[in-house]
């Protein structure tokens, strides 16, 4: 009975094995490639090097290494989904590939291959054979980044333009205070948003001088949010609802040029796809090295706008660990109404209980010539919503006058206030989070006034421009010493002007390249012989436009 089954199985097995053997022998004899290196880079400083055998197709290589490259046709060059960005030149398109690329990417490719402009070009992964060391970029979705699911459990409007969102992850996640997560915006929402506001986004991109990237189906979008909480099973995010005017500069972080009020709409708008209570959202993370230093130090926390979130978490940690060192918390806001009244009592109480902690809210005014000292109706209303006990505390500590009509605390910007509250101290550490202009100017002031070391200025670089900006600032500081040593008349004024040009005209407009050029020119002038005073003036003039 079983004989025929065994026999047939045997015959088949022998046949298939013989065929595979032929294939294997041929492959071993003739098909073996040389050892090659595959470098994969991605967002969030992801980098991975793989040792591979050359001669294989890129798609199969990547798929066998577990990268999720979509390919509906399975590598037949039919679907055109397996596009990858290559940093290495592996030749131009093959005949089957060309139809899958539009004019723009064809021109890009031509430029990259023939003139070497740009840093990458696109090919279909299924048509690239790895014959040399290849470096490529993969989008985040294709990496195996662990995604967490969470539900939105609470949304609280803490000021007129800031909202606290509580999300409850399905499993508690392990993170350090100060780290951030990347929230995944659902594809449906991104698409809907693009449909409604494409012209707005385009305009905003033009204003910012960025390239407009039209919506491409099948890609999700991520936006970075710092965690304001301390508990592993309930995460709090603070989201700033950017002004509706699309010409204003955008939110921090996220994909470039998605439009400024993007998240605003995601959270508030009455659309089918928005983030309502009970909504299941996904996020990756936690990321970032923005956390409290272990050794005892004098801490300066500087927060502004939505940058409050990680600072809140750090402060929480500071007091839970019971640190006794000096700590100063600068909170930069426009008016009283922008200070979250929900948290105010807690800060005031900390201040009364710890003599080493100082809370310094600094109001700048909403626009030029706006005096934040005189409280307007909204400010008053916000303040009067506080409990009586907290109001008394605020008055006693000298922030508000007795009639609740006037702001008695600090006004203006944080930078000039630093030497009022702090003395030069090598153990001082700055924790900064907030709008880029604030961060840059505060670091500049601290470096000038307090001799702040570069390693001791901690911040989260969401936009990728802060780190180089700070680098430029410190280079400028070095040159400043040299200029002062040159005995040029009015050196102080010239340096002030130089700093202004550098910070306001270049760094705050994300012109990092030009910033480096500026420093280079400055260095040339300082190091070369000749009429230095005149040269410096000429340099300043050239940037006046």
């Amino acid at each position, binding site marked *: 009975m079983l*004989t025929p089954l065994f026999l047939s199985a045997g015959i*088949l097995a022998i046949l298939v094995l013989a065929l595979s053997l032929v294939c294997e022998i041929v492959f071993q004899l003739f098909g073996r490639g040389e050892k090659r290196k595959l470098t994969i880079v991605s967002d969030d400083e992801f980098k991975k090097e793989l040792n591979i055998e050359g001669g294989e197709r890129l798609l*199969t290589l990547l798929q066998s290494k577990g990268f*999720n490259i979509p390919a509906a046709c399975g590598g037949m060059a039919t679907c055109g989904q397996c596009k990858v960005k290559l940093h290495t030149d592996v030749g131009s398109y093959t005949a089957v590939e060309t*139809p899958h690329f*539009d004019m723009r990417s064809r021109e890009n490719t031509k430029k990259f291959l023939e003139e070497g402009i740009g840093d990458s070009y696109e090919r279909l992964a299924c048509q690239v054979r790895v014959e040399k060391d290849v470096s490529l970029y993969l989008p985040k979705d294709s990496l195996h980044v662990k995604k967490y699911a969470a539900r939105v459990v609470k949304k609280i409007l803490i000021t007129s333009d800031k909202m606290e969102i509580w999300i409850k992850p399905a499993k508690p996640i392990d993170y350090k205070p100060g780290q951030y997560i990347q929230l995944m915006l659902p594809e449906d929402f991104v698409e809907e948003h693009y449909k409604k506001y494409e012209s707005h986004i385009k305009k905003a991109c033009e204003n910012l001088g960025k390239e407009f990237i*039209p919506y491409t189906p099948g890609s999700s979008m991520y936006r970075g949010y710092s965690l304001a909480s301390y508990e592993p099973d309930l995460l709090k995010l603070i989201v700033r609802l950017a002004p509706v005017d699309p010409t204003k500069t955008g939110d921090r972080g996220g994909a470039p040029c998605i439009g400024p009020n993007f998240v605003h709409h995601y959270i508030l708008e009455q659309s089918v796809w928005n983030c309502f209570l009970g909504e299941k959202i996904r996020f990756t993370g936690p990321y970032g090295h923005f956390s409290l230093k272990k050794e005892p130090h004098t801490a300066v926390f500087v927060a502004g706008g939505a940058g409050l979130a990680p600072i809140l978490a750090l402060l929480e940690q500071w007091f839970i660990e019971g640190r006794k060192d000096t700590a100063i918390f600068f909170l930069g806001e426009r008016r009283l109404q922008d200070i979250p009244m929900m948290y105010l009592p807690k800060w005031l109480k900390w201040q009364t209980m710890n003599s080493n902690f100082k809370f310094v809210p600094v109001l700048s005014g909403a626009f030029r010539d706006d005096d934040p000292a005189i409280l307007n109706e909204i400010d008053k209303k916000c303040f009067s919503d506080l409990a009586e006990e907290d109001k008394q505390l605020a008055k006693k500590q000298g922030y508000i006058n007795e009639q609740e009509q006037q702001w008695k605390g600090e006004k203006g910007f944080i930078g000039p206030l630093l030497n009022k509250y702090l003395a030069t101290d090598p153990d001082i550490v700055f924790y900064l989070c907030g709008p880029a202009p604030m961060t840059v100017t505060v670091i500049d002031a601290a470096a000038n006034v307090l001799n702040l070391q570069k390693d001791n200025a901690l911040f989260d670089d969401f936009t990728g421009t802060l780190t180089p900006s700070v680098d430029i600032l410190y280079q400028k500081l070095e040159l400043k010493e040299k200029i002062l040593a040159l005995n040029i008349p009015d050196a102080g004024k010239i340096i002030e002007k130089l700093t202004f040009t550098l910070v306001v005209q270049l760094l705050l407009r994300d012109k990092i390249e030009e910033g480096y050029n500026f420093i280079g020119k400055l260095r040339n002038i300082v190091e070369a012989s000749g009429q230095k005073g005149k040269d410096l003036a000429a340099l300043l003039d050239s940037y006046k436009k």
Partner: protein
Amino acid sequence: MVGLKRHIRKTSKFFLRDNLILTAGAGLGFCSSLAVTNKLENSLTMGLGVLFVTMGSFALVYPFKRLISTAGTHHKISLLMIIVSVFVAIFGFFAQAFVPEIAASIKAYIDLITTNCIVLAAISEGLTVDFWEAQKKILKACMGYAFALVLLAFLREPLGFGTVMGFSVLPEAFPRTVLMITPVGGFFALAGFRLLLRPFLLKARIVYQEAASCECAATATNGSNPAPASREKIEISKKTLITIGLGVCLFISIIVHIQTNPTLHTQFLIFLPILLNALFFDGIVLSKLLGICPLLNKSRQIDAAWKMGVAVIIVTTLSTSLNWVIYNSVLIKGSNLIAKYSPLSVRLEEIFYLTVFIVTIAVFVQTLSVLLRKFARAVYEEMGQFLELITVNCIVLASATFTIPTGASFMVSTVTALGYGLHWLMVVVWLALLRRQRLFVPTNAWDEDTIAILLLGVMAAIFTGIGMISIF
């Protein structure tokens, strides 16, 4: 309320967004969707089959993920194909047991689920993500496919037979459109569906309007226009002319004088009709409706079309002859051997022919490309990628399954396969030429594909007409 609206949108998107047949920019899985949709019951069977095969074989493959990814490309395809073809065979038997009439009418296409573009792609993509996510993706692809099949059948069956699932729905007096149930009707129905559904889906925001970039115009202006360029270069010298003339004379004289050699003459009389039949009247694309996905895609560029066509000819001819040898010398002899030892007859060639065919093809193509890469680098650079593209391709498998199990002789199967290959080359080059002319000024790649399907339909109609003429 918002929740409900959202769920409706999500569900419709699940079926229709990136639906490989109806909405995706680059379509896949056309072959069977055209051939079986003349009846709703066929469509349902086919959809179920694809779903069963893909999910089942993925569940079997997944535990051996590590093994498959380390085995290297040359074994990966064979391993996957063995498992897939076994599942196809199982499904075939189920279909024969439960719905024998349907199974009999679409047997060929059930076999060809093995090389359905969706199956292998979904499995190998699924291996990179975790199990349930992959099953979800597979479900999406296969359900979309089944959904498209059912939609097409709903159009074709009532118009053609006046029935739905065998129940008559149209009054007797209503004219029956026979066109709709012939293979040709498939092209028109599909193109019609794609054109008609598009505005509706766009309006319902289920599909996204791609950037209006005229692909073909881009190709034309881009200078990547190899056909006319190469035409200018060729200068026919006197020598070539004389050689061609002599060759033609030789060919004609052979044909005329072939009668003098009686054996050759009989061979000629047998094989010429077979070749012509495979080449024109019963072509693999225009009447059997196979190999359409690569056809649509590769016909966007003329040089790609030529090279792909030549690769198809080589692979179909050689692999079919190889398959004939293995089928007759291993499978049939093996079955006879088994029959000797046991009263229970197990016919290997009836159960496992698919597995053996597809494994042979995969091994053959892999080996050929490795050898080419080593020894004929120049040829490989020109043709190699096309060879590999057709490892798992319905044309190649079909030219084996349509000829060999019927008991055809070696020469007959080989000549038929050659005819099929030539037919494919012919159609793909014609289509490429037609698309180059930009007859309808399409706005994007998506519309262009639809137009190409329409063109194919017209070509199929013409060829059906030619087929009516009896020459022999």
